[in-house]
């Protein structure tokens, strides 16, 4: 009965109801997008870092991974010391450098990683084989395209290339053993990975026994934070960062987007609330006489309040459901804009749909719809019946 009356009341002003629903839909879509933006970066960055089970990153003291060209000396000793820390199950060393693929008129520049193929966590092999030998490398599709090479071809690679003097710190001919997708780079980045010893040897004395970063895997039952602290105690020349710490650092740098999401999300919620409140209030004011008649024939105050609240819920719910669909479409579009950030890993999504967060936000919108209906309905149901009827009759 209450539901039927609420539906009839909403249908009485179809254009107004549709317009209000449209407003709530856009507000709900915006709210959903902002919730996805606020939580998406954290979740996708966290899941990217947590891939392959690496829970700790170790970089030169005072720096973040690959934030500077600084490297960690005596990498071999450092690996041994970290492996001795309780709970550490594997250590993956990484040495980053710039390589130049020679052979064409202009050398092709690419980012190269020296890794241990047995424990690496920087790339996924798409085809071919791991660089098991010292004269092998795996390359990204972008590098293969730029050099017009394929798996099985040989690449003339130089490290420490001085374009002015045309000299190199090291130069080798390496066989492309496989194609790889680099997890922390974008699809357009030219990248290669080879054995750590190869990069160290090609880099000369400046790179000998050095690493830019260590990725540390810990046992599942070990708190990464404790292992991190133990690593920093054992190696005072490094900074160890747990996945949670790295996510917090990334959030600090991208705090602008989080704040923007919070502000716009709050504004969307406020606009949705105001819209439903306005519509319900006006609708109630128009029906003061009708409500007084209902009260006069014995309809309870609670019944009237419930009917009007159902109207508010109906508007919010319909808007929230269509807003969910619109929000997913706009989030996809906004994500495609932000994914064009230079150097952003492909695996990072700014807008990530998480059912719990999304439904919480939309639930909040519906709750605001309920709140929007309570006050005007209670006020209308509490008006003195005879006075209201007389005023309405006299007009």
């Amino acid at each position, binding site marked *: 009965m209450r539901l039927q009356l609420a539906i009839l009341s909403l249908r009485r002003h179809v254009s107004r109801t549709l317009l209000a629903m449209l407003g709530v839909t*856009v507000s709900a879509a*915006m709210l959903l997008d902002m919730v996805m933006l606020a939580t998406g970066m954290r979740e996708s960055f966290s899941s990217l870092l947590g891939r392959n089970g690496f829970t700790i990153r170790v970089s030169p003291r005072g720096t973040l991974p690959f934030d500077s060209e600084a490297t960690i000396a005596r990498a071999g000793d450092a690996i041994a010391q970290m492996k001795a820390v309780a709970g550490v199950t594997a250590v993956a060393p990484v040495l980053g450098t710039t390589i130049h693929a020679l052979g064409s008129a202009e050398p092709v520049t690419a980012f190269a990683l020296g890794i241990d193929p047995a424990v690496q966590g920087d790339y996924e092999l798409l085809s071919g084989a791991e660089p098991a030998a010292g004269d092998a490398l795996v390359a990204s599709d972008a590098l293969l395209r730029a050099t017009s090479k394929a798996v099985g071809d040989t690449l003339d690679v130089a490290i420490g290339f001085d374009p002015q003097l045309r000299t190199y710190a090291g130069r080798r001919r390496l066989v492309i053993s496989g194609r790889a997708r680099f997890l922390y780079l974008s699809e357009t980045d030219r990248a290669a990975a080879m054995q750590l010893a190869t990069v160290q040897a090609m880099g000369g004395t400046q790179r000998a026994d050095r690493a830019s970063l260590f990725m540390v895997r810990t046992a599942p039952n070990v708190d990464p934070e404790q292992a991190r602290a133990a690593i920093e105690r054992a190696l005072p020349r490094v900074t160890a960062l747990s996945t949670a710490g790295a996510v917090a650092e990334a959030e600090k740098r991208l705090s602008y987007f989080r704040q923007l999401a919070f502000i716009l999300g709050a504004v969307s919620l406020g606009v949705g609330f105001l*819209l439903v409140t*306005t519509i319900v209030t006006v609708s109630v004011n128009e029906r003061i006489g009708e409500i007084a008649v209902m009260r006069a024939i014995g309809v309870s105050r609670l019944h009237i309040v419930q009917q009007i609240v159902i109207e508010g819920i109906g508007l919010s719910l319909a808007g929230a459901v269509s807003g969910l669909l619109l929000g997913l479409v706009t989030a996809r579009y906004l994500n495609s804009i*932000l994914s064009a950030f*230079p150097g952003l890993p492909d695996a990072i999504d700014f807008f990530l749909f998480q059912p719990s967060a999304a439904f919480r936000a939309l639930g909040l919108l519906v709750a605001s719809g309920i709140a929007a209906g309570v006050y005007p309905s209670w006020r209308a149901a509490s008006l003195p019946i005879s006075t209201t009827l007389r005023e309405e009759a006299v007009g």
Partner: protein
Amino acid sequence: MLAPEPGAVSGDTVRVAAILERRADPSEVARSEYRIRLHLDHLQRLISYGDRVDRFAVLSAGGDAADSVLKSVNQAAFGFRAYPSREIAVETSKTFLVVSRFHRAIGVITIVASATFLLCIMLLKVDERRRDVAAMRLMGISRSTVIRSVMVESSAIALVGSVFGVGLGFIVSAFVNSHYQAVYQTPLRFAVITPGTVVFSVVLSLLLGIGAGALAARRLARTPPLALFGR
């Protein structure tokens, strides 16, 4: 200024000659690292870099002169390449282009949301005048006069609302600037209200106000006056 022979000796003393303020450079906004400036020769000696530099910035007379300098440098120089500042600016501003596109998209969504809200409010506002309109019609005032008067009223409301909105916009932008300037320690302005922005928002709200007013007024004027009275 560094000591005359800085080398790389542990224990060297460095005197801070001046404190620099960060430039209003968007590319430096997200960077939180500490920065120092040294004389070129001091830094070369400190890091044993020899007589080398990473890049040169060349000042030219501009226009065609810049192009001819670029051409002659690229023809004469061996092992390095000259780029016009314009090209470098395009390359280094990609991040800001992405952010700018994102802001534009968010802006469009916000405009749609606020336009719907405004339209809804204006329709309700005009709808509230049903009894007045009925009285005017019964007194013999023509339909067109009624429509015009309702439209003038809704335009006035939209105009006053936009003036308040512009004022609120200035306050919010001042807050945004002071907040982010403090967060990123930069004199860069994050929110700028241009005359174009003001004109756009005022015109948009006026159009919406007038549109909503016209729509609602036409509907009211077509309804028989007694029906507007609820009879």
